[in-house]
């Protein structure tokens, strides 16, 4: 069910751990599976579990514990905005409000065209760059003043 390319990447992760500890690769494997599929359906999680020789429930436990895994479909771009205290002191909330108004959605909602899902994040570990946000778990955007957000949205839409 996962592509050969993803499985190859998972193999690379498995090789990092002792031969009898394949399960250690589950976090990376789930992240790779999500990258391929866009989100983690139960079948995808089960597929990862089978590949690593672990119980599907054990992989499901991991997928539900860590909040960067998406257990339901999200838009083409998932925007995660940090609103925690250090970010809020430097405009994090303002950025979140601006995005809500621009996109016409609240947190945990997806725009009607399926382009954007807005999420409220907890600390991303880059408070000095506040306001900060993440695009699709991978791309970190620092110092997101409103004009920067306009630029980012225009770039993602194009």
């Amino acid at each position, binding site marked *: 069910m996962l592509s050969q390319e993803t499985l190859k990447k998972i193999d690379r992760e498995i090789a990092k751990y002792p031969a009898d500890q394949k*399960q250690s690769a589950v976090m990376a494997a789930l992240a790779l599976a999500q990258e391929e599929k866009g989100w983690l359906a139960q079948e995808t999680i089960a597929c990862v579990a089978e590949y690593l020789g672990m119980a599907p429930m054990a992989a499901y436990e991991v997928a539900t514990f860590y909040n960067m895994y998406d257990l339901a479909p999200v838009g083409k771009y998932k925007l995660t905005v940090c609103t925690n205290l250090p970010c809020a*002191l430097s405009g994090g909330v303002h950025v979140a409000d601006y995005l809500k108004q621009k996109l016409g959605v609240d947190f945990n909602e997806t725009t009607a065209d399926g382009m954007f899902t807005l999420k409220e994040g907890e*600390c991303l570990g880059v408070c000095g760059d506040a306001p900060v946000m993440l695009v699709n778990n991978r791309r970190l955007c620092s110092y997101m003043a409103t004009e920067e957000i306009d630029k980012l949205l225009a770039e993602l839409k194009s």
Partner: protein
Amino acid sequence: MSTQQILLAGLDPNTGDQTWHLADYVKRGGYAALKKILSENIPPENVINEVKKSALRGRGGAGFPAGLKWGFIPKAYQGPRYICCNTDEGEPGTFKDRDLMRFNPHQVIEGMIIAGYAVGSERGYNYIHGEVWSLYKRFEEALDEARAAGLLGQKILGSNFNFELFAHHGYGAYVCGEETGLLESIEGKKGQPRYKPPFPANYGLYGRPTVINNTETFAAVPWIIINGGEKYLELGKPNNGGTKLFSVSGHVVKPGVYEVPMGTPFPVLLEMCGGMRNGKLKAVIPGGSSAPVLPADIMMDCTLDYDSIAKAGSMLGSGAVIVMDESVCMVKALERLSYFYFEESCGQCTPCREGTGWLYRVVHRIEHGLGKPEDLDLLNSVTDNIMGRTICALGDAAALPVRSFTKHFKSEFEYHIENKKCLVPPEVQREGSRIYVTPNRVPSC
């Protein structure tokens, strides 16, 4: 007082993204400590002793002496031992390891290899905060460079010492910053912290003896080996050796990471950050969101080291300094922090799972004009029932802000309860610095 930097020395944030490579690090004197140890055949116990002498204390927050921790690894143990590095930087206000990892990853690698040599380990993992993906990628590249140069792998630099190192990424769970939660996470499980004892030195990764330290702690080791533990200690103050990275966020002109010697007066750091952005200093959280908040006058008298901050009633923690000016409503600020702990509690221990919800809901209702006169006593009672009653420190981390905010800024909480509104007038609560909690994530009171 010394102004020497040993972690970010010569690294400019503007060019740091280009000068992290192995060749640059070697030019800065990198891997000399490892070469010295291997070429001079320095006995592992001497390496541990040097680290003990340096009074290097754990930079992740707990401040436990690193040399002592290494010394706990049972010498007679037959079988693999592991070195784990905690780069799961997710405590609000903390972002120091990010700069270390992006500008100087090889110093972390060298520190970990030396730790492996000191405790007889042949394999290590660096657990990297998943939110900053570029750090994970960069660390993997740095590992490839080190492998290609014979600094990792079999018979390192022609010696009989073997060591392999890998990167493991997190994926969004604050509790994995707790060392045993982190070990569970590397094992491919939920990151729920373990009962202690046994401590990781005896029962760590895969049940094997394990050294686990913060990124900054490992990165300090090469300098200690080259210059000696005593020199490192002299950089700071007694019992608080060396320099420390401080992540400064909030209402300062230049938020960012600053490396200063332990014992530097707080006003000096504040000045380095360009001072306050706008208003007057009101309060500082000196060691990450779980450290008790201190009012401006107490903080301005503190020096930045474990002992001084502890004496003032807070914790140096990870050195995450959150600076707040007078536009901040302390009830709102606490509400946001309490939400964080409620959200991040792993649910394993009842006092934390239930208690963090209670704390958040009660602070929330005070902030929203629904507070009751008995609420401050109630908050105290809930914190009493969390603290010291949980497997890991997340429970205490949730309780300490509540304790300190309601103690030092009691009048603001009382005003909110009595007048159903904020003591800090809305026009003072500056646009762009509002603190906010999503209403639809609020469980009913």
